[in-house]
Structure formats: structure tokens, C-alpha cells
């Protein structure tokens, strides 16, 4: 079994986000890229399959920031067998749309053999939708998203897909297929820094030239803005003791405590 794990960097939400001067996108200067958390789960689920049935794991990403190497080396330090990156003349200012990403990824993936492509179920910046179903469309293979477990059984995989209210579905998927991974069966593992450093000296990342960036389906953003996050909350200030008193008063007033 060969699993391709597609990873992507997204703006770290821990940083304060700012909007650019046209008011239509994030200010690239305020972005510090971090790995999409769901991709980390996609990699973990693939590594669990490597351990269980000897799957080969290749990690692949579009190097839109010029800073993807670290994420790829980290994936290898955790156990991925190979890493590839799609390189091209990406403009830092332009956010690659999900549609554009899906096409770039599909072109790179078609010549590579695979049984499954694991993709993080969504990313915080996918305004025009999730990449995984689009990628599956380009590859002409089925897709299932919001997956939380993948178990191989007799040539197919049995997957769990989360619905809502704690309800899940079990489905069988015949490869080749794309799966949008929501959560791995266990917390993503950590790679020791020393191991990542060692891998970055020894391993090579194969480069794939990007094809044309497809901008057909980019949705026109007229205005991007930060909602007044204080929209509703009345803020309670003071030392922790004063805050606690204020909270307890509120609860008493409302007969909650």
C-alpha cells in the first residue's frame, strides 16, 4: 500500500491577524506559517498504517511559502519514507485558492502511483472549499472526508466518518481514493528536534515543477475584515480574585449558584 500524505502550511492563528491595505486578504507580513493541524492527523493515520501493514508513506506539499522543507523533514523524522515538494514561481501576495492547489497537486500526483491520498479535512484558509474533494475530482477517484479511522481489510479500507452529535458512519472504500482526514486514531506523534536536524542533513526532498496556476474559480473577495470579536462580550477586568468575585456575583444574580 502506498499512501501519499498532502500537507499544507496555514497562517498560525496564535499570531495577531491583520488585513492588507486593499482590505481583501490577510497582510502577508503578519502571517507566520504553521502546518495545518488536520494534516498532522493525516500523517499520523498514514504512519499507523505503515506500522500495521507496512504501507509506504510519501509526504507531498506545494512550497508556496518557500518554507515547507522543515515540515517535510519533520514528517520524515516521524516516519514518512519520502518527501516531495511542488515548486514554482508563487507570488507571496497571492493566496493560492483551494481550486488552484487541487489542480497543482493532481498534476504532480498523477505520475506517482498511490493507493490512497490522505489530506487534512480542511484548513483555516480554504474560503473556496476543501482541497480533498477537488483533488479527487481531478484524479477521477472517489473521496470521503471527515474520516477518523482507516483500517485495511481484504483489499479495501474500512473507514469511520464522523457525522454530528457523536454519530459516525462506517464505510468501505476501494482504492485508489482520496480521504479527508479529520483526526487520527491517536494524537499525532512528536519528532525529536535532533532527529529532524539529522534528517535534514541526510534526506533529499524531490522537487516537482509546478504547472500553470488555475485561477478560473477564484471567488472574488470584495472585503475581508476582522469581526469585532468583542461584539457581545462585556469584559470583566481586575485581579483573578476580583474576576472570580464578579463571576460569582453574576451567577448569584441569575440564580445559577
Amino acid at each position, binding site marked *: 500500500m502506498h499512501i501519499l500524505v498532502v500537507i499544507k502550511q496555514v497562517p498560525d492563528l496564535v499570531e495577531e491577524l491583520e488585513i492588507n491595505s486593499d482590505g481583501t486578504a490577510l497582510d502577508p507580513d503578519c502571517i507566520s506559517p504553521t502546518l495545518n493541524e488536520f494534516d498532522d492527523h493525516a500523517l499520523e493515520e498514514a504512519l499507523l498504517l505503515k506500522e500495521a501493514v507496512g504501507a509506504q508513506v510519501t509526504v507531498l506539499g506545494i512550497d508556496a511559502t518557500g518554507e515547507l522543507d522543515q515540515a517535510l523533514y519533520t514528517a520524515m523524522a516521524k516516519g514518512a519514507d519520502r518527501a516531495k515538494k511542488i515548486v514554482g514561481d508563487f507570488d507571496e501576495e497571492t493566496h493560492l485558492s483551494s481550486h488552484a492547489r487541487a489542480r497543482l497537486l493532481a498534476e504532480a500526483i498523477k505520475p506517482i502511483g498511490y493507493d490512497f491520498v490522505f489530506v487534512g*479535512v480542511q484548513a483555516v484558509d480554504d474560503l473556496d472549499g476543501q482541497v480533498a474533494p477537488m483533488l479527487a475530482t481531478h484524479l477521477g477517484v472517489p*473521496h470521503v472526508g471527515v474520516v477518523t479511522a482507516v483500517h485495511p481489510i481484504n483489499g479495501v479500507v474500512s473507514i469511520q466518518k464522523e457525522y454530528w452529535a457523536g454519530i459516525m458512519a462506517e464505510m468501505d472504500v476501494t482504492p485508489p481514493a482520496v480521504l479527508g482526514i479529520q483526526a487520527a486514531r491517536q494524537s499525532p506523534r512528536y519528532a525529536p528536534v535532533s532527529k529532524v536536524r539529522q534528517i535534514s542533513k541526510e534526506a533529499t526532498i524531490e522537487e516537482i515543477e509546478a504547472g500553470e496556476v488555475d485561477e478560473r474559480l477564484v471567488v472574488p473577495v470584495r472585503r475581508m475584515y476582522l469581526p469585532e470579536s468583542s461584539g457581545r462580550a462585556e469584559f*470583566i477586568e481586575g485581579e483573578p480574585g476580583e474576576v472570580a468575585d464578579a463571576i460569582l456575583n453574576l451567577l448569584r444574580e441569575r440564580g445559577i449558584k
Partner: protein
Amino acid sequence: MAQDIFVIAEHLKGSLTEGTFEILGAARTLAGTTGGSVVGVVLGQGVEPLAGQMVAADRVLVANDAALADFTPEAYLAVLEPLIRQHQPRLTMLLNTSFGMDLAAALSERLSLPLVAYCKKLETENGAVVATSQIYGGKVNAECVLEGPGIVSVLTGSFPADAGRAGSAPAIETVPLPASLNGRKVQFKTLIEPEVGDVDITRSDIIVAVGRGIQSQDNIGTAEELAQALGGVVASSRPVTDAGWLPRSRQVGKSGMSVKPRLYLALGISGAPEHLEGMKDAGLIIAVNTDPNAPIFGVAHYGVVADLFDVTESLIEKL
């Protein structure tokens, strides 16, 4: 292009979901200005009764087949793609749920129609549809303009469901099915009901909810102590249950439970849309977060910008 608005219905265990009524109602409002009909679309087996419940629609298209009895993205797409291609609606509305997420992006790519995902507000302006999407974990809004035909996937809880429940019996049409829906690569097997947990958080009036800010399993005990002192239970956001620090049955949000307690004390929870879906209607929401821009403050009644551990300790001391 027709001016019609397609509303793709969702149902599970024989009932339309609340979200379906929400987008039906939103479609009804939009149709008031765009001028087209609201067309419901229901896929399944024996779903005519559900079609009949979509009273806010002018007509409902029904696809009936054993292969559609349970949702699979593959079979649903095989029906929806040709249907939308044939009818060319002005707007196709889905929910941004586990079903809709699998369908909307695939339909967008297959039909070359633009998609605005994570949509929470819809308006019309000079014939264009203006869709506001909530991205970056709820920290940013993006207003997008759909001049021509397009697709939106709507966050549940964005529109009142009542508007989708008003109307009279819609006309029901059965649609032809693609040649074969059998022999597909994705086969539905079974539904898995949630494990019954030690506590049912949906029944508690007082919830102390912890998020990634709680940092480690060792700190869950502090939250338990506070919950006990308040006479409530501990619930959490997804990362806490994903890490195994609390059982799944304690998860609040899109894939977890929806709760409506009298008090929801959110500690170290950022307030991603997927979390808010499960708790935004709580009677009193008090949020403690070190980040003053955390989206949780957008739904909280009271906010505290502070370290959750300091506030928790003081509360425990005083109780």
C-alpha cells in the same frame, strides 16, 4: 441560467436535519429578491414524505434508489452533478456539514462553479449574491460576490429554522437516475451511535468547558474540581478529546454534542465555528482566554482576558 435556488436536503435516520430548514428559510428570503423558485432536492430511498415536509420550497426534486438509502459522497455526486448541470440554478445551497463538505467542493470542481464555503450570511445586491464566509478559525470574515451561478456551503446555525418550516405542500417531481448507482467504490456499512459516556453533558445546566488552553491531561482535575464546586460537569473542545484527555462523549461542537446549559464557562477555547455550533445558544456564556481577539468573545456574554489557571484557582478558593 435559471433564477432558481437549489437547496440540497440532509436527512439522517428518517428525519430532515435542522440545518436543512435553516437553508430552506434562507433560500426563501433570497428568492424574494432574485425572483426564481426555491427547489428542494432530496436523495434517498422512500423519501417522498421528507420531500413533502420541505414546505418552504416551491418544488422538490426527489431521487429514489436503494443505492441512495444511506449517504455516500460517490453516489450522491453521481446524481447531483447531472441534475445541477441540467437545471443550471442561480445558486446551489448545501450545509457545511460532514455531508455537505464532501459534496460542495466536488460539485464546484466538477461543474466549474465558484464555491463560497463556511458561509454564514447571504444577501443580494443588484442581482448579485453576496456571501459572507467565516474563515481563519472564526477570526476573519470574507465578503464574496457571486455575479453568476455558484454554490454556497452554509454553517449550521446561521439562519433561523422557523422560516424554513413555513409554507404549503410543494410540488414533488421524481428525477431520472444515472445509468448505474451500483458497483461503486464507496459502500456504506453501518451507523455507529455515540458511546454512552459516564455523564450526559446535554443534560447539565452548568458546564465548565476546557479547550487546548488547558495544556495537559493533568490539568483536567482542576476543571473537574471547579465543575464540582459549581454543581456542573466538565466538557471540552475537540483537541481535548482527540488527545484522549476526556472521553468523546464530553465533546461540544459540530461533530460532538450540542448543549444549551444555563451556564457555559469556556476556559482556553478559541471559539472556532465548529465549536460555537454546539454551544452558542447557552443561557450565559463566560469565556476566559489570554487572546483578546479570540472569536469566543464574539458569542460570550462576559469575557475575561486572563490566564485560565489564575481564574480557575480563585473561583475554587471562593466557592
